[in-house]
Structure formats: C-alpha cells, structure tokens
C-alpha cells in the first residue's frame, strides 16, 4: 500500500513536469510568431540585381493577387534551384489582402493588379512603395455551355449580363453577337469574386471604359453584384464555380482558365474585331502602353487590330526602405529573377512577357530597394 502511494506521488510529479514542459513550449512558441516580418538567418553580400551568385538564406513572405498565383507558384519552384536556401511563400488571397498585409508589415512584398487606391493611401503614409510590373495577361470570359465552342461577346452585352439585365443564354443580344449558333435557354449563372480583387477592379474598369451607360455598378475591387451571382474566393475559386455549374459565366484570368480547362469567349475590341484571349493578343494590347514614371499603367481597352480588350497587368509592391540588408538582398534576387529568367516561364502558362523597355525600366528600379 505504501508502494502504491509512492507510485501515485511519482505519477503526480511526472504530470507536473510534463505540464511545465508544455507551458515552456508554449511560451517559446509565443516568441516565434508565425507572422514573419522578414527573413531570418545570416545576411549574405547582395549579389547582382538578377540571379545572384552569392547564396542567400531566409524566407520571403508574400500575398495578394491571385492573377499572379500560377506564375508565382511556377517561379518559386524554379527559383529553388537557383537559391536553395531561400524559401519564398506566396499566399494569394486577392489584391486587397496583399495591400493590407504590406501596410501591416506581415509580408515582404504584395501582388496587386491595381495601384494603391485613394481610400487605402492613408495606410501607407510615410512609406515609399515601388511598383514592379511582373505579368500582363487577359481576363477571360470563361463559360460553361455544352455544345457552344466559339462564343463571341460584345462589351455592352457583357455589361448587361453582369448587371443582371440579361438573364438567359438565348437572349437576343447574345444571339446578335453569335449569328448561326444555337444557344440554349439555360439561365446564366454569374461567377464573381467574393474577396477584394484586382481582377474585379480591372474587369469593371474595362466595362466603364467600353460600355458607357450600359454599366452602372462602377469600378472598385469589391462590387455589389446582382444577388443571384455566385461568389468565390480567388481566381481559382471562380474557375471552379464556372467549371462545376452548367450555364455559368465568370471572369477568370487566362492562366487559371487555361489550367482549369475552361472555354473562353472572344470579345469585341475597340477596333470592332472579335479577339480571343491568348498570349499574342495580350502582347498586342500591351504594345501601345506608356507607363508613368512609377511604372503604373492600365492595359484595358487599348486600341490595336489584334489586341484583346480585357488585358490587364499585375505588379509586385515593395517598400523602398527594407528593415535589414538580408531582406533587401533577397527581394532583389527574387524580383530580379521574376523580371529576368522568370519571364520565360510565362509562355508555358499562356501569359505575355513584359515588353523589353518595360522590363528594363523595372530592372533599373531594383536599385531603389535599400535597407
């Protein structure tokens, strides 16, 4: 019986020790929060602006535009062979989230499809933000309609569909764009973004520019869509809605639509031609664009015979002043890769590379990242 008692005391002691260990682990986990504000690890001498020969260690965290998501995921895997000790995490979440995270300091760079809007400018007072354009590509009108392969749409028709005035596929306006094609009476299910999105911003900017009075919902990264619209998060989410809903029509970036196997409609451009989204038609649209000194521009609704009218762009936003030399070096290495050899990856996913003059201006801007 005394033995039993001692065993009980021993058990109590062991549990107290275990509890202490757990509490100790908890307090140590408290100090290493997962909201990383920058890379950790030894700082290395910063190499050249593109692929650095010096080995860098640390982690870069980023979030934002899901337009860039496919490109970033491919680039991150390829970049691993150039800088094996560096980890880059790109979280997506929409352009709005990226800008919020950058303002809050929880990411090193943010992907955004539009410049910082006026109502968010107050989050960035006192900081200089650099815009690095990385990709240019089409927003497709992705649809799910069996038996219809080459759908054509006019901007005014698109505006009416997305405002909810055109409700079914066999509407006269759509028939007028597609003579000779038999359209079913299926109702149109709109697929839109639920999160704050640069794709939404650029798509609605296109509608404002091209459809005039037919589009009344304005332009912003969040829109009050008709109540019957199905909202999803990120470009892949919208693509999934279109893919799984017969009769759906949504706006999805080209890389995502292509990887999901969706059909995309040809859209009538400024010159009056119906152009299908592709790498070539996006390049044609971007050809005439002149960026401002801070490298921002808008590529939607550009003129040109073979230009795809809903072409848009995405930037990586960075603070000009970095907290330490290692962060600055890692950013220069990774962004330099995106602007250099990374551009070769774009052809595989169907996006257009930046024009050489734009690319050179962006590479030159890398030197403005200081610490």
């Amino acid at each position, binding site marked *: 019986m005394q033995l039993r008692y001692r065993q009980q005391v021993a058990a109590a002691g062991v549990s107290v020790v275990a509890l202490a260990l757990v509490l100790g682990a908890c307090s140590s986990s408290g100090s290493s929060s997962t909201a990383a504000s920058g890379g950790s690890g030894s700082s290395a001498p910063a190499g050249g602006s593109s692929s650095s020969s010096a080995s860098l260690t640390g982690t870069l965290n980023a979030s934002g535009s899901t337009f860039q998501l496919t490109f970033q995921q491919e680039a991150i895997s390829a970049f691993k062979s150039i800088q094996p000790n560096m980890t880059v995490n790109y979280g997506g979440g929409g352009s709005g989230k990226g800008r919020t995270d950058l303002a809050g300091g929880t990411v090193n760079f943010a992907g955004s499809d539009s410049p910082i809007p006026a109502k968010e400018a107050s989050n960035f007072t006192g900081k200089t933000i650099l815009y690095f354009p990385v990709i240019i590509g089409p927003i497709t009108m992705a649809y799910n309609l069996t038996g219809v392969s080459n759908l054509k749409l006019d901007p005014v028709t698109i505006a009416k569909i997305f405002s909810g005035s055109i409700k079914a596929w066999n509407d006269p306006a759509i028939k007028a764009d597609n003579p000779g094609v038999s359209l079913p009476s299926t109702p149109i*299910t709109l697929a839109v973004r*639920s999160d*704050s999105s640069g794709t939404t911003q650029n798509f609605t900017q296109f509608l404002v520019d091209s459809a005039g009075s037919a589009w009344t919902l304005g332009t912003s990264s*969040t829109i009050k869509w008709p109540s019957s619209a*199905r909202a999803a998060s990120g470009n892949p989410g919208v693509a999934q809605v279109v893919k799984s809903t017969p009769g759906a029509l949504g706006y999805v970036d080209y890389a995502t639509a292509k990887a999901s196997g969706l059909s995309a409609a040809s859209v009538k451009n400024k010159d009056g031609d119906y152009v299908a989204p592709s790498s070539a038609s996006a390049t044609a649209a971007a050809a005439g664009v002149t960026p401002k000194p801070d490298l921002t521009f808008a590529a939607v609704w550009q003129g040109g015979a073979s230009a795809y009218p809903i072409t848009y762009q995405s930037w990586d936003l960075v603070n000009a002043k970095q907290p330490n030399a290692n962060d600055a070096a890692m950013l220069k290495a990774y962004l330099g890769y995106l602007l250099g050899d990374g551009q070769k990856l774009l052809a595989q996913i169907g996006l257009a590379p930046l024009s050489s003059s734009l690319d050179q201006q962006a590479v030159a801007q890398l030197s403005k990242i200081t610490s």
Partner: protein
Amino acid sequence: MSAVAQADPAAPAGSAHPLSHRRPLGDRLFAILAAAAGVLVLVILALIAASTSQQASSWFSTEGWSVFSVDWNPGTNSFGAMSYVYGTVITAAIAIILAVPVSLAIALLLTEVVPRRWAQPIVYVIDLLAVVPSVVWGLWGILVFAPWLQHIYASIASGLTGIPVLDSLFGAPVSGASFFTAGIILAFMITPIVTSLSREVIATVPAIDKEGAYALGATRWEMITGAVWPHSQGGIVGAVMLGLGRAMGETIAVALVIGASPVITSHLFAAGYSMPAVIANQFGEASGEFRSALIGLGVLLFVITIAINLVARGVVERSSRRKRGA
C-alpha cells in the same frame, strides 16, 4: 497494505488508525483533481462566451440593431447578418423535414421490426454514416452530387413554372449548390444522431405496454402508434431538437455546397449562404471590423445552438423523469 490491515482487522476503513492520516490526503487530492476536471467544462463554456463576445463587441457596438439588416457589404463596411441567419434556419429546417421521418423509421426498424441478431448490420451502417467526416461530405457534395442535382432541379423547375406556390418554392433560379442540396447533405449527417437518440428513447418504453397491445390483437403499426409513441413523444422531440442544433452548427459541408450567395429568397433550389459557411469561407481574408463581424456571427450561432440544446435537454429530462415516476 496487507501488513497494515492485518494489524487491526477490527477497525473499519478510514477510521482512527495510526497511518490513516496518509490515506485521506491522496484520496482528497484525487477528489479535487476530479472535481477540477468537471469544473473545467464550465470554465471552458464561460470562456467561450466571454472571449468571442469580446472580439465581436466592436461589431455589435458599431452596427447596433442593424446587425439584423440584409445589407452585408465589406466594401462599404456594413455588416447585416439577416441573409445568413435565414440560410442557417432554412437549411436546418430542410434537414429536419427530410431526416426525422427517416431516422424515426430506422429507429423503429431496429427496436421493433428486426430480430436482435440482424440488428447489428443495420447499426454498423448507421455507425459508418456517422463516421464519414463533414469535409468528405462537402467534397463529394460539390464535385459529384451538386452537378448531378442541378439537372434534376432544372427539370423540376421547368415542370413547375406557373404553378403558384410550388413555383416560388421550387422554381427557377436553380443551382446545384443551393439551400436544398445543403439541406439534403445535412439530413444525411444528422440521421445517425437522431436515430441513436430515438432508439434510446424507444427502448425505455415498458415491455408490458407493448405486450399488452399485442395481446389485444394489435398489428405492429398499431402497437407503435398506441404504446410506443405516447411514451416516447417527449424524448423524440428532444432528439429532434438536438439534431436541429447539430444541423444549424454544421459548417464545412454546408460551406462547400450552399453556393455562397447571400440572398433571402423562397426559391429553395437557389444558391444561398449560412452563418457558419460564411465564417469558414471568408475568415482567412478578414480583418478589423469584418473579422469582428464574422466572430459576431459565431456568437449568434453559439447563442442559438445553446438555446436549442438547453430546451432539448430539458424536454428529454422532463419526459424521462415523468416515465420514471410513472
């Protein structure tokens, strides 16, 4: 131990004994430990209420009574929860209407119809149904079930155009991912719990009443309606309410198949949204007042499900106490 006991066999345990002061201490510590574990439940419940309300307080104070408005727009910072409350109630109602008859039927099957030996396989099937994780129901629902259902809904809707009440319930717009699909999947998920609770309740019906009914020449169905039902009414109502609470709180399966469209509409085949679904879908990108609003929805959900649970437990307790007394 044996040495001590043999030393004084006449003394009862725990009484004045030279070494007895050591025993109560370990014993008392264990009793305290056990009590602490029990009180932990109360502490956790209280903490849940307190911490989530505190996080949600900014939403409640900013919106005031317009938390129940229909306008939910993160862009303009207005967060009215009505469409989500509506969706939660509607999907849970559909689930109950579909699941309760089926669950009761299976419970009766197990207790009255099927001989003991054959009951085991049926119980295994119900167990299997219970163990399928919610996220797997959702995955199957959105990738397989909803697209298949969309065609069925479309045919039903086109068949019903023009008929007054039915058209507004089952007419266009239709979507595979909709209130009704979420309701069906919820029905699958709450069937096991309502079935097992109903079984427990039906099992407490005194055999003497059942045998009496048979002795009077009743068929099985007449025995069920005459002897089983009056006794187990209260308990079954309680079981149904517990199923209702579970259906309202179910998150992931609903988030995937409800269609993510915050509308208040009578069309059951249209896409909708519910409180737990919107929290699951949008929490990752929410911050500031948006996040406070989502946590506030969680508080609303907590209050509703706790209220339903309290009432259900009370009903079950009251009816079982009545039976025991009688």
